């Protein structure tokens, strides 16, 4: 059903704006576009774990580039979710070394427990999105799942998988990022 109200233009929180300013200073002034990937990461954290088209437009505005310059980047790099996601995105490594230590079985197990399917939308309870990713550079601790900035390693036992899932289920808000003060509305409102 089409919405009858005009969509609200997203805005970065004050904390995120300050962080973006800090990041942009790392590059020559005329090279503000260099901040594209770090700013997209901030946008994804700020706006519920994905970058909607209007969020990408906001990134373009902040960086002073054309929206297409953001779209072509957001669609190239795999970390940016272009569709709404569950509260937690489980990025399951599927590459060789993890496969040798049971990542295929882990994927099936996570699908069974959460009810979500890899590459599809979030689980019915809205908690989990399952995403298969390529090598996470943790091959010695395989199989591995990444959730936001945390690596869950050696998920080759029922206990380790359950521990990860119950930690995530009990998480009310995503962990605050370094530039976010604890309790700041934007640190807790999303994800």
């Amino acid at each position: 059903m089409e919405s009858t109200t005009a969509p609200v233009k997203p805005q970065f929180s004050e904390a995120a704006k300050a962080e973006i300013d800090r990041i942009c200073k790392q590059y020559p002034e005329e090279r503000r576009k260099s901040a594209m990937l770090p700013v997209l990461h901030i946008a994804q954290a700020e706006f519920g774990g994905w970058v909607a088209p209007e969020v990408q437009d906001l990134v373009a505005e902040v960086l002073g580039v054309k929206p297409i310059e953001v779209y072509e980047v957001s669609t190239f790099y795999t970390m940016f979710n272009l569709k709404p996601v569950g509260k937690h995105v489980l990025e399951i490594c599927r590459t060789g070394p993890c496969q040798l230590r049971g990542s295929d079985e882990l994927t099936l197990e996570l699908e069974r427990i959460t009810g979500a399917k890899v590459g599809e939308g979030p689980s019915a309870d809205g908690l989990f999105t399952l995403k298969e990713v390529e090598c996470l550079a943790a091959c010695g601790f395989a199989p591995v799942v990444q959730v936001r900035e945390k690596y869950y390693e050696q998920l080759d036992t029922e206990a380790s998988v359950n521990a990860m899932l119950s930690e995530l289920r009990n998480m009310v808000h995503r962990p605050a990022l370094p530039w976010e003060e604890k309790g700041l509305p934007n640190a807790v409102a999303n994800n």
Partner: protein
Amino acid sequence: MGRKLLTEHINVEGIDTFEVYRKHGGYRSVEKALKTMTPDEVVEEVKKSGLRGRGGAGFPTGLKWSFLAKPEGVPRYLVCNADESEPGTFKDRQLMSKLPHLLIEGMITSSYALGANTSYIYIRGELLYVLRILEKAIAEAYAAGFLGKNILGSGYDLDLYVHPGGGAYICGEETALLESLEGKRGNPRNKPPFPAVQGLYARPTVVNNVESIAAVPVIVNDGGDEYAKIGVGKSTGTKLISACGHLNKPGIYEIELGVPVEEFIYSDEYCGGIWKGRDLKAVVAGGSSVPILPKELILKTAAGENRLMTYESLSDGGFVTGTMLGSGGFIAMDETTCIVRNTWNFSRFYHHESCGQCSPCREGTGWLEKILHRLEHGHGNERDIDVLASVAKQIEGNTICPLGEAAAWPVSAAIRHFRDEFEWHIRHPQEATRPGAVYPGKAVLA
């Protein structure tokens, strides 16, 4: 027990803080270089050390540095490649998260040698938590006067920043990395011009792997000649090996180059043998891009000599019977491993990671994945093996960047050494695709 040049203090409590790192001799190379050496003298020591690029290509670091163009009045850059994504490789992540100051020290000393006043560490986006660790350590280094203006009163200025990627293997290729750092898609650039002449923002740039940069402090402290005494022949110094797959003790091992492969796999000092008491079937010794070798050829060369963990020994026999040290991503596979499945997995990886710029790679990696998927799932036909080999050959050498080779080599090598296992999948699809099926050996094809 071999010497640990990089990781000696890795397990020291608090070594990720400036104070503890400094107490263990940290930042001495910065003092020595900035106070007693000219930039060219630092480059000379790195040349003498014989250090070879630890990211995978093994190109002499000092020589790479000497190519850097130095036009008057034009800024130049040092960029650290921390986009560690080569399957089987996880050393840089460990090094950076546990010893952030080692990389920072290496960056300062190396930037001084190259005359760079702004340097970047490009870290893969998945490692944002490591970026936080590095940024905290960088702030400490600024506070202690090792970064910023007029470092240690030497008149040398350096700003150091960490930049995250966004999830793309291709950005480990140095020109794709630079594109990405400029805020664009990671499409590798046509060369020439090389980064040493036109790199970041079209300015002269050196791109070096984390482990290469981390070796610079010890080279400057002890001298290039001392460093070169470690190792064998042109494989000098120590190397971090990421050991994974079916090993009893997977993990990161810093080895003196020259350790026999057999000792590395089986001795308790290193990997402690193959898990579950099983036999070794094959090894991919230098990250997923290098040719796979069966047990016999990884332990001994075709001439019957012990294979050593060196650039030269691992490549003995060329691609016919040898492989490469590459990034040191050492993937061991036990006797139950399905080589067809593993090859398909790696082909899927390269197809997924191809940037799509060059048609031989964009289309070829897709065909490799499709044909291998079909073989692995019991729908292959007799022609498939030759088609695979031919597609691989047509990708090789026909692309802007080495991802083409990286995709082709594992397939060519798997067919070269395990052709019978592919044939088994074609002739006995029902047995070969049974869950848990293990290839019983050539006799089954008779």
